[in-house]
């Protein structure tokens, strides 16, 4: 049961994009077309799975002080492998994703899961976490890109949609439309989960690295005490 919840929490409850708000840059940039978004989601999922497993297996070997550079080296290795595979077998996707494919190295979801999960949990759990988070990421990208492509371009997966093709709202494929759809999806997920995920300590203000110097945290604490 616990294993299942590790797997499933990435989809809604701790969705990496819509609840943890990680990996925003590729989310906004690659969701203009459903096909690109799916490719991006799958590529990031593969990297996430490999890096989570590796980092979890090496968590007792890597010294704590230099863990971030170690993670980055591992992640960069996997990204290079994925990039070569995509270049070889799906050159169209490679040119469509452009710089965002190599930029998976600095995707916050992958580093975030390494920090938040893989370096504290077993290999099996980390693999499940990676798969769950990967599905959550891919699903979010897919939903967001579908909305943007259908409304903004009148097509879905490249196929024209009869009525919408002639009445497209181009702003959805532009940056402002991306932000608008992103915000609406965050609101929707908050509504579904009733904002529970955000109240959890490690994702809230007190989980922030700058918590010690931030005035907001004290205000929040007082508010909580009042309740």
């Amino acid at each position, binding site marked *: 049961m616990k294993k299942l919840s590790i797997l499933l929490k990435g989809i809604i409850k701790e969705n990496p994009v819509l609840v943890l708000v990680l990996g925003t840059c590729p989310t906004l940039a690659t969701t203009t077309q459903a096909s690109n978004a799916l490719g991006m989601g799958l590529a990031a999922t593969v990297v996430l799975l490999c890096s989570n497993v590796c980092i979890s297996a090496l968590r007792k070997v890597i010294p704590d002080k230099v863990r971030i550079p170690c993670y980055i080296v591992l992640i960069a290795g996997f990204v290079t492998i994925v990039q070569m595979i995509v270049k070889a077998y799906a050159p169209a996707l490679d040119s469509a994703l452009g710089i965002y494919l190599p930029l998976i190295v600095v995707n916050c979801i992958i580093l975030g899961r390494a920090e938040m999960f893989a370096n504290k949990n077993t290999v099996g759990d980390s693999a499940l976490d990676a798969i769950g988070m990967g599905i959550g990421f891919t699903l979010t990208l897919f939903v967001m890109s579908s909305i943007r492509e259908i409304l903004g371009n009148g097509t879905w997966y490249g196929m024209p949609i009869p009525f919408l093709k002639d*009445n497209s*709202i*181009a*702003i*959805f494929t*532009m940056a*402002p*439309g991306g932000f*608008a759809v992103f915000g609406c999806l965050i609101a929707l997920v908050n509504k579904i989960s009733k904002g529970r995920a955000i109240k959890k300590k490690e994702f809230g203000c007190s989980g922030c690295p700058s918590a010690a110097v931030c005035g907001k945290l004290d205000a929040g604490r007082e508010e909580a005490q009042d309740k």
Partner: protein
Amino acid sequence: MNNLILSPSPHIHTRQSTQVIMRDVLIALCPALIAGIVIFGVRALIVTLVCVVFSVGGEWAFEKCTKRAVTVGDLSAVVTGVLLAFNLPVSIPLWQAAFGSLIAIVGVKQLFGGIGQNFANPAITARIVMFLAFSQSMTTWTFPDAVSSATPLELMKTGVTDNMPSYLDMFLGKTGGCIGETCALAILIGFVYLLIRRVISWQTPVIFVGTVFVMSLILGQDALAQILSGGLMLGAVFMATDYATTPRNAWGKVIFGLGCGLITVLIRFWGSYPEGVSFSILLMNILTPYIDRWTRKKPLGGVRA
């Protein structure tokens, strides 16, 4: 004793309410609406009605859904609808006009907390959203004389000024453009009415238009045509004087008008778009809180915070 009210200043009250102000603005908009119908035909009225219905309906529906007090009665949504329609070409598909109205009311006004809480002018922002969303139909102009093929601003932008309409035609609005923006005469009538009724003060519109005029003169452009064309008059009188999104005191209004004028000139002469009025007002809307802070009056004996 019940008539005694203990309250902080200000102690002087007027009978002005939001509803009275908005009614005055609507009256001031009437000449431009009539001019729009005369110049572009009955469809101008239909577009305006669609925008008003969807603005008011959108406000009512949103406030019902979120269980807030319904503020449809203050007429501000009607003003937003009319202003948005005035910023659209007459040939705009009606569903696009309805979409823009909902963006203005729900997206720009209600999501930020309703009347008085929005940081940007709803009609201007919705116009820009529509401009980006429907670039084709937002720049398909209808021409009253059936000869021209470009608006005066587009002509001046390309430098081919053989077909430029006369100053009188531009003053009377017999040129291509949006529904409510072409007739400078009608907008000026509305401006005078608003001044007499003390709904707006003169600073922003006069400085705004004046800046564009002077800058055009300095840069060797046709200054008179610049101020008579595009959405300058409409924007300066009705959009740059919105209470919620522009500075409160006189010097603030001067700075606001100056900034609007400069940005308009920059976009018109060096930008890729022919018109920059809506962008200039939106950008200055964002600066308004800072302008208000710079121009805050020091109370007698007080220390500047």
